[in-house]
C-alpha cells in the first residue's frame, strides 16, 4: 500500500456524528458516524441506491440536515458528480438563454471554464492545468463551446478543473465512468501524484477500479454507513470484497458438466418414496410410521423442532443412516437393500448440512471443495474434467472468491465454508438438492444470495429442492409443499 506522507496541513479530521439528512422526498441518510482523518483517502461503495453518492455529497453540503453534526470540513472542497455536472451544464444553458436577445451565443469556451478558479482560489495551480490539458490532449478543444461537448468530455474537463483548483478535499463520484482504459489509467496516475496535496473521496461502483492509493473503504447499504474498512486489514477487506461482489453481480446459476450425468430416471417414478418408516436406537423411537413421497419437480420444505428426526429422515434418503437398509425406501429408481451402492444414490443428490461441514475436515483448496461435488466426496480423489474445473471457477466467481481458488479451505470463516459447501451441493445440478439449514452462519448478504440461488434452482426444472429450516422468514418462493415433523412423545416410544 502507498505510504501517505503527512503534508496536507490544512486538513483536520472531518467528523460526522449521528448525522441524518434527507435528499429530495424519498431518500434519507440515516445516523451516519464517519471520521475521515487527514492523509486518509476513501472509496465509498455500495449497491445502487444504497446512498454512496449521498454520503459523499454531504461533505460538500448536500442534503437537508435533520440531526447530527459535521465538523472539521476544510475550506476548499471540490466535488465532481453526476449532479455537479448536470448543474454546470444547466448553468451554461441558462447563459445561452440570457444571451439570446442580441447575439447568438457560442457559449462559454472550454478554456474559460477551466480557468474559472484562477480568480477565486489563491491556491489555483496554473502549471498543473497546463500539464493536464496536455496530458489529456485537450488543446484542440480549448476554444470550443463547453456546452457542445459530449458528456464524457464535459466530465473530463470538470475533473481537470477541479484538480487545477487545488482543493483541500476532492470528491469524485464515479470519476472513471465512461472513460476508456487509457484515460482511466492516466487519471488514476494523476490522482496518485496528488495524494499528498489533497484528501480524496471517491465513489465507485466497481471494486476492481479502486486505485492502490486508497487507504479506506466505506460501504453503504440502505442509507446507512454499514462498514468502514482499513484496506490493510486483509480479512475485513476480503469480506467486503466478497460482499460487494455479490451485490453487484447479476445472479445466475452456472451451467454444469453435462457429459457426466447419472443414468436418466423414469419420469413417472417418484424421486423418493418412504413407506412406514421406523427408526429407533435401543428403546428410543425417533420416527414411527412415517410415509413421504417426493415427486420430481415438487419442491418441499421440511421443518420440525430439534429432535423430531429431520436429519435422520434426510440421512435415510441420502443413504447415510444405517437403518435405511431396514426400512422400505425407494430412491431414484432403486429399492434400497438390493445391491445398490451408496455412490449410485449419491450421484443424484446434492447435500449441505452442518454435519457435513463438521465432517468436511480435509486439507483442500477452495476450488477442490466445489469440484468434490461432482464426485460426492469429501476431498477430491478422482480426476475432474476441464469442463468441471471451468464450472467450479464460475462458482468461485459467483461467490466473489475468484482470486482465492487455491487458498486452503480450512482457514476460511464458517460462513465462507458454508457458501462453498452450498456451491458444492449445487455444482452438478443434482436431481435432488437437499439443503439442511443452508443459511446457518451466513450474514445477511450471503443469506440473500443463497436464497436467491435456491429460487433460481427451483425454477430451473432439473432439480427438485428439499429445504429444511427453522426460520419462517427464509421462505422460498418456488416451494409449495410443506412437511412438519413432530417430536415423538417419549411415552409413546
Amino acid at each position, binding site marked *: 500500500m502507498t505510504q501517505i506522507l503527512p503534508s496536507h496541513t490544512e486538513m483536520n479530521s472531518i467528523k460526522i456524528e449521528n448525522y441524518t439528512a434527507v435528499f429530495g422526498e424519498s431518500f434519507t441518510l440515516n445516523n451516519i458516524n464517519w471520521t475521515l482523518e487527514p492523509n486518509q483517502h476513501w472509496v465509498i461503495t455500495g449497491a445502487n441506491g444504497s446512498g454512496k453518492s449521498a454520503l459523499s455529497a454531504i461533505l460538500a453540503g448536500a442534503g437537508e440536515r435533520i440531526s447530527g453534526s459535521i465538523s472539521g470540513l476544510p475550506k476548499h472542497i471540490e466535488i465532481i458528480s453526476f449532479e455537479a455536472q448536470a448543474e454546470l451544464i444547466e448553468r451554461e444553458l441558462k447563459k445561452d438563454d440570457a444571451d439570446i436577445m442580441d447575439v447568438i451565443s457560442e457559449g462559454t469556451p472550454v478554456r474559460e471554464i477551466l480557468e474559472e478558479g484562477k480568480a477565486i482560489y489563491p491556491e489555483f495551480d496554473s502549471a498543473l492545468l497546463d500539464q493536464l490539458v496536455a496530458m489529456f490532449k485537450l488543446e484542440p478543444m480549448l476554444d470550443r463551446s463547453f456546452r457542445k461537448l459530449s458528456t464524457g468530455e464535459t466530465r473530463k474537463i470538470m475533473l481537470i478543473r477541479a484538480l487545477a483548483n487545488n482543493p483541500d478535499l476532492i470528491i469524485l463520484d464515479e470519476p472513471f465512468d465512461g472513460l476508456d482504459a487509457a484515460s482511466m489509467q492516466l487519471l488514476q496516475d494523476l490522482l496518485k501524484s496528488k495524494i499528498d496535496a489533497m484528501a480524496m473521496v471517491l465513489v465507485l461502483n466497481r471494486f476492481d477500479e479502486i486505485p492502490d492509493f486508497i487507504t479506506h473503504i466505506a460501504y453503504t447499504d440502505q442509507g446507512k454507513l454499514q462498514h468502514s474498512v482499513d484496506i490493510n486489514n486483509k480479512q475485513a477487506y476480503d469480506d467486503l470484497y466478497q460482499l460487494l461482489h455479490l451485490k453487484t453481480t447479476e445472479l445466475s446459476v452456472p451451467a454444469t458438466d453435462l457429459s457426466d450425468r447419472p443414468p436418466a430416471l423414469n419420469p413417472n417414478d417418484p424421486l423418493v418414496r418412504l413407506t412406514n418408516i421406523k427408526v429407533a436406537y435401543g428403546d428410543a423411537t425417533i420416527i414411527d410410521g412415517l410415509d413421504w413421497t417426493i415427486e420430481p419437480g415438487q419442491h418441499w420444505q421440511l421443518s420440525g423442532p430439534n429432535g423430531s428426526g429431520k436429519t435422520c429422515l434426510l440421512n435415510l434418503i441420502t443413504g447415510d443412516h444405517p437403518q435405511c437398509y431396514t426400512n422400505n425406501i425407494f430412491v431414484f429408481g432403486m429399492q434400497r437393500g438390493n*445391491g445398490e451402492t451408496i455412490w449410485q444414490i449419491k450421484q443424484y443428490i446434492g447435500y449441505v448440512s452442518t454435519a457435513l461441514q463438521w465432517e468436511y475436515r480435509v486439507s483442500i483448496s477452495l476450488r477442490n471443495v466445489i469440484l468434490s461435488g461432482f464426485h460426492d466426496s*469429501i476431498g477430491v480423489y478422482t480426476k475432474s474434467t476441464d469442463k468441471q*474445473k471451468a464450472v467450479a471457477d464460475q462458482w468461485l466467481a459467483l461467490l466473489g472468491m475468484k482470486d482465492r481458488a487455491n487458498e486452503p479451505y480450512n482457514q476460511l470463516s464458517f460462513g465462507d465454508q458454508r457458501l462453498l459447501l452450498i456451491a458444492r451441493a449445487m455444482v452438478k445440478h443434482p436431481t435432488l438438492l437437499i439443503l439442511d439449514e443452508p443459511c446457518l452462519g451466513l450474514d445477511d448478504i450471503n443469506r440473500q444470495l443463497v436464497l436467491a440461488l435456491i429460487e433460481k434452482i427451483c425454477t430451473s426444472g432439473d432439480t427438485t429442492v428439499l429445504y429444511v429450516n427453522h426460520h419462517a422468514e427464509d421462505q422460498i418462493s418456488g416451494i409449495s409443499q410443506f412437511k412438519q415433523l413432530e417430536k415423538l412423545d417419549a411415552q409413546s416410544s
Partner: protein
Amino acid sequence: MSNNYFNTLPLREQLAQLAKCRFMSMDEFSDGVEALKGKKIVVIGCGAQGLNQGLNLRDSGLDVSYTLRAAAIAEKRQSWKNATENGFVVGTYQELIPTADVVLNLTPDKQHTPVVNEIMPLMKKGACLSYSHGFNIVEEGMKIREDLTVIMVAPKCPGSEVRAEYVRGFGVPTLIAVHEDNDPKGEGLALAKAYAVGTGGHKAGVLMSSFIAEVKSDLMGEQTILCGMLQTGSLLCFDKMVEEGIDPGYASKLIQYGWETITEALKYGGVTNMLDRLSNPAKIKAFDLAEELKEIMRPLYNKHQDDIIDGTFSRVMMEDWANDDKNLLGWRAETAETAFEKTPAGDVEISEQEFFDNGILMVAMVKAGVELAFETMTAAGIIAESAYYESLHETPLIANTIARKKLYEMNATISDTAEYGCYLYNHACLPLLADFMKGIKTDVIGKGLDTTDTGVDNARLIEVNAALRSHPVEAIGAVLRGHMADMKKIV
C-alpha cells in the same frame, strides 16, 4: 498344540513368501465388487474391524450379516448392539454360517483357533474364509478344510478410519493375500480384490502380499516402533523430566500430546519433515541422539525380528495364553501404576512448535525406532512397501491413541498380541537405555536448547540433511505418500 506354519516351509519358500509384496495398480480393480456380488457375506464378530468393514461392504452393494457367539446375542453385548442398531441381520453360527459364501473372521486373534474350529464344520463346501490378520494361519498353523478358499484383506488402519475414509469417498491402504494352500478354485485373488474394493481400500493403495509377510512385518512393527518404543519413550522421558525438576503436569502433557504432534509431521513428510520442524541446532542434536539410540537398540530390534521370524515370539506368547495371560495381565497392571500414567496432564498451554522444541529426545526416539524397524524388517527379507506401512505409516495412528488416554488407551486399542509384544519390548528396552538416559538433560527433553546458541556448522548441517533424506524409508515413503497425495490432490 499348534504348529508354526512358517517353520514347516523350506528356507527358499520362506524367503519367497517374506519378500512377496507388490503395489497394485488401480486398473487391477476394474471389476469392482463383481466377484462378491450376490454372495452372502457373514462376518464373525462385530468389533472395531467387523462393524466398520461390514458397513463399507454393505454400502458398496454387498449382502452382509453378522454372526456372534451365543452369549453375545443372549446378553445383548456391545457387539450385538453394534450390529442390530446398524440394521444388520444377526444370527448364531448355526443359523448363518451354513448360508455363507464368504465368512469374514473378525474376532480377536487370540480367539481364532477356537472360533475357526467351531465354524469350519458349518461352512458350505467351496466357501471362502477371510482374515484381516494372518496370525492364526502363520503362527498357529491352523489347517483349513481343503475345499475352502482362504484369503486375507487387512486394512492398515484402525476400524474407525476404515469407515471414515470410506464415507469421504476414499479408503485406507490395505494389504491382501491368498493362502496358497487353500485356493482350490483359484478364485482367492478375485475375491480379495473385490473385498478390498468393497471397503474402499483400492482407492488408497493395495499391497498384494502373503500371509507370512503380513504377519512377520505386522508383529515386528507393532511391538517395536509402534507401541513398544512409544511406551518406553513415554516412561523414560517422563521420569527424566520429573527428576530434573520439571513440573510433572507439564511433563505429562508434553508426552501425552507430544507423540501425536510430532508424528503428524511424520505423516505428511516422513522423518525428514519431522526433523525439519526443529531449529538447526536442535535438528543436529536429535540426529545425533537418534544415531546413539539406534546403536544401542539395534540388537533389541534384531532379537524381536529373529524371535518373530523363527516363531519364538508367538510360542512364548501362546504359553502365556495357556497360562491365563499371567504375564500380559501383570504387565498391564504394572503399566497402570507408572508415574506417567498416574500423573494427569497439567493445565498448561503448549504450542504446536513447543512440542518439537522441548521434545527433541522424543523426535530422536521416533526417528530411531522408525528407521530401525524399517531396516530390520527389510534386512529380514520383508519388502520395503510392507515395512513402510508397518513402521512409519502407522506410527501417527498409534500416537493418536496416547493423546486420548495415555498408554492405557494405546494398549486397550491395539490387539492383545500387539500389547503383549509391546510390554516385552518395554521390559527389555528400559534397562537397555538406562545408561544413555543418565546423560540426558532438560535441553533435549522438557526445556529445549538454550536459544542463545543458534549457530551450526554448515558442513555438519549439510551432512545431517543428506543423511536424513537418503534413508531408504524416505524413498519408499515419498512414493507411497505420493500415491495417496496424488489421489487427494488430483484436480
